[in-house]
């Protein structure tokens, strides 16, 4: 079983496809779940505190906006953990979104510079593209076993 980070890191469609092939999908909702269940709820709903942007300093300098660093506190550890990645180009907001494009850019950069296998995909526009999309993901994930 490989740990696979998906981009956008909030994509439930991609994480579902990863899980169906027996791998572990690394996604932001899982990180948020940890935040809201492992400690006391100080700052609902996400339970993010000013400590998170400080943790994000591991991935981005202090002059990077706090919102980017806070998001990186959630996504950065997932990238560190990942054995492989699936990146969807131009995903559209329905697929998932970190809300901040600077974060998106940094996430893609860190995934690519990590040197793990990456599957690049385009967002499918029709039924046949969608089938091809799923087939490529399946083949990539099976190759990781």
């Amino acid at each position, binding site marked *: 079983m490989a740990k696979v980070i998906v981009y956008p890191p909030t994509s439930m469609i991609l994480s579902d496809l990863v899980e169906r092939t027996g791998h572990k999908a690394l996604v932001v909702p899982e990180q948020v779940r940890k935040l809201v269940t492992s400690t006391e709820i100080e700052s609902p709903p*996400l339970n993010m505190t000013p400590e998170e942007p400080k943790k994000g300093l591991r991935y981005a300098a202090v002059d990077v*906006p*706090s919102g980017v660093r806070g998001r990186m506190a959630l996504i950065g550890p997932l990238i560190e953990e990942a054995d492989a990645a699936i990146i969807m180009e131009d995903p559209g907001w329905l697929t998932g979104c970190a*809300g*901040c494009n600077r974060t998106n850019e940094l996430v893609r950069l860190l995934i690519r510079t990590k040197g793990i296998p990456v599957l690049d995909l385009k967002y499918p526009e029709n039924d046949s593209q969608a089938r091809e999309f799923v087939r490529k993901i399946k083949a990539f994930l099976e190759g990781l076993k």
Partner: protein
Amino acid sequence: MIRIAELSCGAEYSGIQKEIERAAETVGAKIVYPEVSLDDILNVEEKFGVRVSSGDLNMAMARAVRIVENPDLADAVIVMTCFRCAEAAIIRSEIRKFIHERSRIPVLSYSFTERTTAETLLTRMEALVTTVKYRGLLGRERQTGLTAGIDSGSTTTKSVVMRDNQVIGTGWVPTTEVIKSAEDAFAAALKEAGVQKEEVQGLGVTGYGRFLVGKHFNARLVQEEITVNSKGAVFLADAQQGPATVIDIGGMDNKAIAVQDGIPGGFTMGGICAGASGRFLELTSRRLGVDITELGKLALKGNYQNVAMNSYCIVFGTQSLVNSLSMGCKPEDVAMAACHSVAEQVYEQQLQEVEVKEPVIMVGGTSLIEGLPRAMEELLHLKVKVPPHAQYIGAVGSALLVSGLLEG
């Protein structure tokens, strides 16, 4: 309950959402999030004029459109984005303008870091709520009866006594011990007015020490300085109707307020960098060996272009000051350069965030340093008005507003 619509990007992930809500709660307001559909976000460019690559900013713009189309959704708006984000800085300013031009809903814009606390936001939030809650009171144009005001500032404490729309007594002391300074300033104002404390029908208090001083004197009105100062400024400058821009460069922070009919419509309050404060001018006068009251006159004789000085930081600003003097620069040039440096930073940091409309009124003790309004005039290419009693605007605004409460 006053509803403040939050249009933001990054507040949750910066860990400050709780602080925003806590500040709102402290001033009796509630943060709300106007609902928007996915179509509203996807089509935001049609109505707002632009769509950007960050989803949360598009959502903030879609919410602004919704508020303008349905003004009953919120009583006030805060637009908050991450400090140092260029995309957000552009959109934050455009959202503010969009709402300001299309509605009468007051807007506060602010850029935050993870260090932003409820206390940082409190005065701003209080002003926003006051603008909504006491709109009738803020519309008041005349002072009636015998009332007084105390402005407990970070550097100086000011007091006035007013009777029938006239300032009849003033008091001004440096702030040391907050209550003692307030007592001294008030006593001086009462003495000049020739009235006893017991005769005063109502006392209003503003400034940093307002809560402590208000409690000590059992003041009828305890109010933040943004609404009070803008009221005092338009009253003293005789600009109560129509638009006006109030600039108050204080000892610790600066305020730029866009006013319409005496009521703040949008404002910024800066206070991170002391290089853009009255404190820097105080330091300059000390270094030049002139009294602060003489600094402005000296500056008017100088040319700021002869001295390199422009720093956000009071330490680096002082370094420039010392360097220029050691290089043989003339004291008058240095004095004007210091005024220009402060004015330029207020212009760059704050006046870009409000609609600058004439008359531009400069108030507060620093407005009496003649070089400062002159420097601001050069930067704005507009005439700057310094009203009489400009250093007492907070106290005058308090005395004026509290007289309205006496009638209620």
